[in-house]
């Protein structure tokens, strides 16, 4: 790239650059949209996870309640004679 030389075949280079612009527009368009797609997936995962977490939380409390109730029922059914009167 000598200073004095410049680009010898300016027209050809210009055409090539122009074609390059076009191609890259296409490529960047596609790549951007693919990235957006992935971003959506990531976000979807995030929301799903947080929803699952809240569901999990509710299930946890329910489970503990259920355990307690089971114990209560167990005490009651272990002494059936108390309920026969």
């Amino acid at each position, binding site marked *: *790239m000598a*200073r*004095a030389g*410049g*680009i010898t075949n*300016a027209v050809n*280079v*210009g055409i090539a*650059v*122009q074609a*390059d*612009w*076009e191609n*890259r*527009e296409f490529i*960047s*368009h596609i790549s*951007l949209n693919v*990235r*957006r797609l992935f*971003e959506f997936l990531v976000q979807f995962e*995030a929301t799903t*996870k*947080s929803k699952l*977490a*809240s569901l*999990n*939380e*509710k299930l*946890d*409390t329910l489970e*503990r*309640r259920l355990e*307690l109730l089971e*114990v*209560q*029922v167990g*005490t*009651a059914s272990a*002494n059936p004679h*108390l309920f026969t009167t």
Partner: protein
Amino acid sequence: MQLAADMQRFSRPERRINGPTTTHLWSMLKLLDVLVQLDHLKNAKASIPNDFSWYKRTFTQVSIQWQDIDSMREELDDLQIFLSTRWAILLNLHVEMFRVNNVEDILQVLIVFAVESLELDFALLYPERHILLRVLPVLVVLVTSSEKDSESLYKRVKINRLINIFKSDPVIPAFPDLHLSPAAILKELSMYFPKISAQTRLLTLPAPHELPPREALEYPSHDLYIYTYLLLLLKSTDGADIEWSKEVKGNMYDMVIEGFQLLSKWNARIWEQCAWKFSRPCKDAVPSESNESLASYSDYEKVVRYNYSADERKTLVELVSYIKSIGSMMLRCDTFVADALWETIHAEVQDFVQNTLATMLRTTFRKKKDLSRILSDMRTLSADWMANTSKPEAELQSVQHSGEEGKGNFFYPRPVAPTAAQVHCLQFLIYEVVSGGNLRKPGGLFGNSGSEIPVNDLKQLESFFYKLSFFLHVLDYSVTVSTLTDLGFLWFREFYLESSRVIQFPIECSLPWMLVEHVLESQNAGLLESVLIPFDIYNDSAQQALVVLKQRFLYDEIEAEVDHCFDLFVSRLSDTIFTYYKSWAASELLDPSFLFALDDGEKYSVQPMRFSALFKMTRVKLLGRTIDLRSLIAERMNKVFRENLEFLFDRFESQDLCAIVELEKLLDILKHAHELLSKDLTIDSFSLMLNEMQENISLVSFSSRLASQIWSEMQRDFLPNFILCNTTQRFIRSSKVPLVPVQKPSVPYAKPNFYCGTPDLNSAHQSFARLYSSFFGIPHMFSIVRLLGSRSLPWLIRALLDHISNKITTLEPMITGLQEALPKSIGLLPFDSGVTGCMRLVKENLNWGSKSELKAEVLRGIKEIGSVLYWMGLLDIVLREVDTTHFMQTAPWLGLLPGADGQILHHQDGGDSPVVNLFKSATSAIVSNPGCPSPTSFCTMSKQAEAADLLYKANMNTGSVLEYALAFTSAALDKYCSKWSAAPKTGFVDITTSKDFYRIYSGLQIGYLEESDQAPSNNREVLGDSVAWGGCTIIYLLGQQLHFELFDFSYQVLNVAEVEAISVAQTHKNPHFNQGWEVVLEAMKKARRLNNHVFSMLKARCPLEDKVACAIKQSGAPLHRIKFENTVSAFETLPQKGVL
């Protein structure tokens, strides 16, 4: 190492090829930087020479068998010399450069470039800035190797400029845990390069480099930035108009650049502060732990742990959170802003290439062939002429039209960025245009006035030139952001690990953990939300360890530390949360009037903190793992609430019954805290936890931990050792040594947050509780009723009633023993013998001298029965009050109206009660509405209303506990009725009988009244008023009240004394007639008053007289007593003790 020096040799000639481009300059600078860093690392780390000498020794031993070892040994020697010489690479480089001539030019160019970039401070991200700062002193050293050279340098760059740069940044970070000081480099190397020693002396005085208080600086820019950024994002979403959206996109580009610059500035600050701290270890010992000598601290502790003040930690946390928040925000918008950025850059480039350059070509450069060719090259390389064609035809027309008469070409925006090659080419070409390839030009890059290019164009070129250098960063958006937000360097400390010869430092020394700890300790509501931010540092450093350094062991270390830290953090955090909610609840439950009257009431109020943001953290990303912080906290909260309940019960069990008020208060606080917390966090319901900890979940058990504790406490301590004071309605502990020594576990220790939160609140609540701690009265009974509830209370009552009947059974043989010791018949006391005579006569009759033990035993038994009965009386009062309140609340709903005579009337219309009606009508209205989603649930609700109505109505008229207890007692007494009240054979009152209970009791009574004369207030202290309650109740229930009132010894003595007093008063013979008896008489009067009180109470609560009256037959012969229908077995409805 050797390789590096070789590389340097190779790199020499290559530099002179083409005129250097900017990229070229940069790569040279970077190469130099790497060399400097390597050199520095070699200087600082002792391990490399150490390892090598070890290797060499081994090698010498091993190599004996080999041949041809001379060359190897030579090489090794070289290597050792190289390793042991400081700045060996630099010296080598210097020597090499002297061999090649003309390097000074390029070095000067490099210096100029570096200085200008530093001074402009535009388009420089912090890593580049640091590179320049590191390289600059070395360059200066290299250039000024001779007098002539240095002069020529100072001709181009004034020495003051250099010194200013060095002064403003006296310490530069080289590695995460290593720093570099330009002044030190210059000073050290000036031994080899004596020419600049004069200048370096100036530099050895480092400017006072204090870190500015950041808040004033950062807050506005941070907040402003976030607001504008969000605003822009909002705007851009609905941008339809092209012109307008172009403007918005331009703004967006500006915002992104600004964001980069902010991030870079902040991150550089942190780096620099870090380096500064490393270079200035804490000098003085920490005052708080002064007993430890400074020598015991490792270097790292001096440098990090004690080197950051609280304010500095706070600002560091804030800064880190700024960086992280903006960084994550920008990363999130990556794809969102990408096309806007591309479009803007495209537009900028095209605008420059197509318009500005075209203008320049037409005007300025028309005559200069060389320059204009460069310019047209630029156009060829990067212009996007055809972008216009992709538009609709009509628009194109108009655009072209306007473009012709407007300011040049209009081009259609195309969201495509120029390639890196294009950018580099443009940069190079502009540089060429401006400098004309002449390196020796004086002045700066764009500052040369000697060029033929007009100032105006120069300006345009210059601004575009710098813009270009930033385009690359912008195009590499996500990488730039993550570089700029990478704070992993805060963790690394290998250098200090090696120098202190330890495997790992304690966690308190770790900077991220220090920050977390500071946030937790500072109790600063604003800071608390960024408590998780320091953990991001671990993420960064783990990333760096794996991706950049590629060292598995570092990652393992980080992982271990993170595991440890996070556990610690969660437990500390939940502790803080619990304490906060506890003290909040405690301060809300303090009496407001008390607070109002207090001067320093503020210390009981709680600083509001917001944990809600932390409670929303369900996905904390940590080293690739996703952690649900919320569920972790909830889990711990569930646990800590249970532990606290356990502790409260333990504490109650180690105290006496009077502590029940305190227990209730503490439970209330806990419950309130639970209520407050469960607004933000889902935790188990309080009643569930309470039941669990009370061991009360069984459906068929009515006892609970608390109830059985109350009961055993009453049995072991309360009934034997407490005495009743009838006037104050209180039981107090007898001051005598307890007859039954009570063994109790010691009060368990707990942190203040298991009481009320903060120590201040603890003492406040403690002083309230202390008021109730030494007696048992109505408030305690209220607490018992509230704590036990309708579930366990009947169990307790049953236990107490059983206690009464047991006591009576045990008393029976003793009373029989006393009965046997009495004479067959006891007559009335003669009035003529006076008080003294009467007392003597009584003593003769009551010849129980040998049975004083038995006497005391019987008295105690009677006292316990009386205590239980009085306790029931208190319970009755409290239950009445509770029931009344309850009734007042439910009556309007149940449709109960007060009648004219005070009786309860039921609702007139005879239909359902208001609550049922209400729900019924509501249900029908809702169900009739077709839009109702679930009519069944409303039907259920109305059914439930009916059930509630029934339940509440059934509970309307509850009986009196006291009456029940009295009935029970009388039923229990029935067994002994024959023994204790012999029915008179004549059918009339038997005066002389000695077998009846009342005789025993009056004998006991006069006995202890007399004793109280001899040892004043002795018996009262032991027995209290409950003896009267117990005795009188038994007498009353046996139907012997009238007998007692007539034939009681003390009553008779009182009568005698009265008569005597009148007669003495009439005769005036002896004013001090019954000297010595006043005390006894006074005590007797008191006893009579008390007995009367008890009898009247009993008459009111358990009327017997009518039954007695009924019992007089028509023949006139009275039946002694009607037998009650009640037997003990009739009371089986109460739950029995011992049933599970």
